[in-house]
């Protein structure tokens, strides 16, 4: 079997908030026990991070708040610019881009046609001033679908797929339950058939039965469409269920990475050990 080029290759990703100084990266991190540079007080949100994501894979990113996991997703979803580093994107359709070198219009095209994002808070991912169907329509229109009937058909399809009652297509998402809002967000993210999906704490704040349904849905989608995903969470259960491989982040660095089972059964890094034992 010939090894296939990964969909995403991230290298040396660094994002520093603040003035920054030459000693920022060396003076922070896991060993220093902080992500605030003692010399210039800049926050080194993420530094020298590299990993690959293969086609059809779900990669878990685990870590406490402030570990840099949300920054990682924000950077890769092109909502923010890194201080340093590169990310190569390559999909089956021959689209190949150096993400951070692309201009704003190209980045928008990638976001609209190739990426999908599901936020923890539906208020970030949905427009509450337009109907459920309108939210899906917006993504389709960004992806250059301009037929009214085509949009209605696809929106109905996606709502059925994500188990949002079809009759609620013209209702406002503000009237939906939390779980339904999250499912609508997933429907919206899936609208243009993305190749790469970012899940930022998708189940946090939902009750357990709803969490289980959302996770099932994500797994089903992944098995059906083979979309690659990066799932950020601090919930070990989510990681165990979804991810085949996991990165553990702390103070803006990857402190441990490997197969999920291996990390959960035999954690090497003291932080991961503490995390796993705390959960069990």
């Amino acid at each position, binding site marked *: 079997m010939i090894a296939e080029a990964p969909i995403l290759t991230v290298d040396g990703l660094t994002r520093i908030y603040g003035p920054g100084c030459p000693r920022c990266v060396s003076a922070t991190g896991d060993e220093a026990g902080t992500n605030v540079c003692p010399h210039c007080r800049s926050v080194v949100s993420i530094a020298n991070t590299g990993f690959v994501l293969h086609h059809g894979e779900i990669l878990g990113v685990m870590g406490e708040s402030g570990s840099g996991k949300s920054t990682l997703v924000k950077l890769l979803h092109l909502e923010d610019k890194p201080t340093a580093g590169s990310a190569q994107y390559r999909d089956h359709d021959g689209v190949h881009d150096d993400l951070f070198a692309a201009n704003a219009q190209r980045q928008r095209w990638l976001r609209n046609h190739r990426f999908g994002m599901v936020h923890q808070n539906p208020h970030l991912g949905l427009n509450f001033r337009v109907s459920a*169907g309108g939210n899906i329509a917006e993504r389709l229109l960004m992806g250059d679908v301009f037929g009214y009937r*085509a*949009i209605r058909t696809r929106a109905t399809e996606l709502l059925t797929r994500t188990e949002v009652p079809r009759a609620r297509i013209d209702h406002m998402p503000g009237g939906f339950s939390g779980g339904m809002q999250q499912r609508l967000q997933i429907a919206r993210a899936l609208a243009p058939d993305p190749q790469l999906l970012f899940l930022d704490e998708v189940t946090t704040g939902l009750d357990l039965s709803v969490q289980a349904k959302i996770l099932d849905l994500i797994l089903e989608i992944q098995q059906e469409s083979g979309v690659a995903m990066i799932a950020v969470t601090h919930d070990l259960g989510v990681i165990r269920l979804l991810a085949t491989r996991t990165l553990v982040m702390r103070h803006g660095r990857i402190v441990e990475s490997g197969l999920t089972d291996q990390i959960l059964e035999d954690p090497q890094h003291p932080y991961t050990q503490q995390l796993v034992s705390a959960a069990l």
Partner: protein
Amino acid sequence: MIQHAHTGDGHFGFLDEFAKKEIRRTCLKAICIPGYQVPYSSREMPIARGFGTGGLQITLALIGPGDVLKVIDQGSDDSVNAVNLRSFIMQTCPGVDTTTRTASATLIQTRHRVPEVGIARGQVLVLQVPYPDPLVIVESNELRRRAMHAEGDYARLWVKLYEDLVRFKEITIAHRYPTRIAGRYVIDPSPIPRWDVPRLHRSPGLFLFGAGREKKIYAVPPFTDADPLSFDDVPFRVEEFRATDGGRLTCARCGSHESFLDEIPLPDGGKRHQCSDSDWCARHREDHA
């Protein structure tokens, strides 16, 4: 058309020559980038902002002796705004003739209407614009709006149309209908009715849009595509003026059944309709006298 001239009292065209030069240059840039809102330093005028200062500045910067000017407001040469602007331009631009005949004018300043016959090759139509940015209804932050224009991100405008179709089975934008110019920038064509939007498309004449308060000028050059936003399977429609029996309403004065009609309430509670374009109405009456 553009000439320098000094008169005994005051400067020709009210604006100083530097201001005119800047406005002309802004107009040229606007013509070069169809539909793009070019910023300029809107001058203080002796009328309040919001009363047509944008259009007035373009007119004063372009007009010269030998020009024939027509000023209309809502299609009529006799409306208050038109009369006042015309008399101001007359006072400050000696040697300029005025007309009410659309066909005889070289320069037409207008508010809320495009003449019923459209504009011909060589004519310039200057529109007064209150809100130059069509994205203002979906995004309040100007910085973000400019990024949206730059990246051609108009999906949220289409969502507005989608929501209208879902809720009312009809697009409810009656005027200021967002229109894509040359397949690139979407403009707010000023508060003209939908009826007038097709007249922008590949017009032989030049359209200039001046927003004085918002300090923007943009243009639809001659023979340029102007496509009102619509869905592939829901075509753009203009006003129909149907009577209750389904027939086309006609103008009570000239009998035209092809023009944009104003509805005029009558003291007895009834209403009648007449052409909004007063010159069109007069020509039609002449032709059918």
